């Protein structure tokens, strides 16, 4: 059985990689099986985790759960075209609750923490900071202000303001470049993982 599973995994791995050459029937088969199985898996998982695990098991312990259940029933009204509009209430609730819940989180992390970390003594206490630390402090303070200027939408990017915005986008691009390299290395490790599977577990060429 393990042997069969190994060959199956290799078959699908190579099938997905065959897309690198071009779209082909092997890839289409793998794609269809992948999508079908994963969709079925998620239906079962969501049913048991959410409906059964979170609602059905605790339905008499916490009456708040019935509000969620009622909203779920409203969503199902889409199955009946004449009263399908009722499902918008549930959607409106989700969108409104999401906005409200995330507002303070974003406010806290994107404004308060950012400002807190950017307000710092550039030269350290009593000029004791090293050259590297001073440079890092200046980069943080200048980069934050210039970045904020770039994302300021009420003023045209012209003159000094435009120049500062260009400094801001420069900071952003340097950050993205560093992030790009870091993430590519992570992806390479994923590729190495699959290559290792093919050559080690499947073919046994690498011991």
């Amino acid at each position, binding site marked *: 059985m393990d042997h069969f599973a190994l060959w199956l995994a290799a078959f699908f791995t190579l099938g997905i990689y065959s897309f690198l050459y071009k779209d082909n029937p092997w890839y289409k088969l793998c794609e269809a099986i992948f999508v079908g199985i994963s969709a079925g898996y998620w239906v079962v998982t969501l049913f048991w985790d959410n409906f059964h695990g979170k609602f059905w098991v605790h339905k008499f312990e916490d009456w708040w759960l019935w509000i969620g259940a009622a909203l779920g029933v409203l969503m199902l009204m889409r199955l009946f075209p004449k009263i399908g509009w009722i499902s918008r209430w549930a959607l409106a609730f989700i969108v409104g609750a*999401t*906005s409200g819940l995330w507002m303070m989180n974003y406010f806290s992390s994107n404004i308060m923490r950012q400002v807190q970390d950017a*307000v710092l*003594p550039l030269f350290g206490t009593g000029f004791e900071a090293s050259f590297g630390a001073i440079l890092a402090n200046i980069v943080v303070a200048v980069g934050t202000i210039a970045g904020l200027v770039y994302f300021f939408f009420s003023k045209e990017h012209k003159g000094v303001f435009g120049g500062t915005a260009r400094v801001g986008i420069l900071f952003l691009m340097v950050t993205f470049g560093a992030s790009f390299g870091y993430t590519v290395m992570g992806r390479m490790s994923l590729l190495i993982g699959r290559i290792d599977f093919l050559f080690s577990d499947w073919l046994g060429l690498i011991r």
Partner: protein
Amino acid sequence: MPLTCPTASGGSRSIRNLKPLQFIVCALLVVGSLGQVNAQSDSTILFDSAMNALAPVTSLLAADHKYDNGERIDLSWIPSIDDQPVNGKITGYGVYRLTNAGNPALIADLPSGSSTFSDDNVEPGSDYSYYIVARSAYESAVSVRTAPLSPQREWLNLNRGFLFLIAALISAAVIYFVQSAKRGKKLFVRKISGLEAIDDAVGRATEMGRPVLFIPGIHDMDDVQTLAALTILGRVSRTIADYDTKIFMPVARSLVMTAARETIKASYQAAGRPDAYSDDMVSYVTDEQFGYVAAVDGLMVREKPATVFLLGSFFAESLILAETGNSVGAIQIAGTARPAQLPFFIAACDFTLIGEELFAASAYLAGEPRQLGSLKGQDVGKAVAMVVIVVGALAATLGEAWDISFMQNIYHWLSSVFSSN
């Protein structure tokens, strides 16, 4: 060695010289003196034992955690005097809890040197009492128990007072600008190049007779990026309805499918072409991240869309999708607030909405007073943040480098204000 009996003068005489009565008295004195010796010896042993016994922790305090949902009790204590960094006897502490005066239960094992613990497995309405057991390799010492304490649920978190004030300030600015826009005041929003390209991109698809592909990320409706993507979808689908172009939109979440269908349907109705709308424009694929990617990639190479929109919350699939879109020659407009994925979009797409530009897009495209007012209000927040950073950094630098107390006070006050999150 002859046997002797102690005398009252402090000397001694041989028992052979004693009369019977004197012998009895002598025997009593000897036994008594032996008792004194034993008593002294016992007390010495007890004293030594007391000196060597493990000392328990002291000053154990249990306090309800402030401004929480009644789900945490904070414990603090002074560690045992035997808890020393060098040659200390304490190996660790056991935290015991009694719930509603029931049996004690060990809830935590802490290393030596510990002096605080937060019990975050409590409920409002129950009484909790605690004691600490200090342990060495051979023995243990139990502290006194705390008085029963019931955690309380607080409605307001006053630690976040400044957060509330700043949020209120920005909200007031938003309301002011929304009202101004409603009164007809023209609000300026700078050009966002990625959004300017939307009409051209849809027009290109129309001219080429190929469809538009819209990918709203892989997160659900509880992600604001998905909400922003659907807002932009409203504008895109309106243009598509006007141009009579084909759109298809594979999604990874069922709720997103429902919301997207509603959005496109409303756009087609607004364009006066409700009959051209079809539910097939939006299709659910799978919740599985890479299953979704496999399906969308296949769709791209088979349908060859002229325009691809990648707007929303993306993870590792961002580059795979963007690269495939690039390989089929589509013009691509992307946008996300995930910093780790932006580099890939910038590298592989024609236009990229960076972070907040994605959120600003809806206001920019719609030009609707409420959204424009909201955008302007947020700009007020950014202006405040910039001023605070400049003033704060100056105050911190002058105060800390040149030791100017006035500047230090400003710096510390600002730090305290913005740390209340």
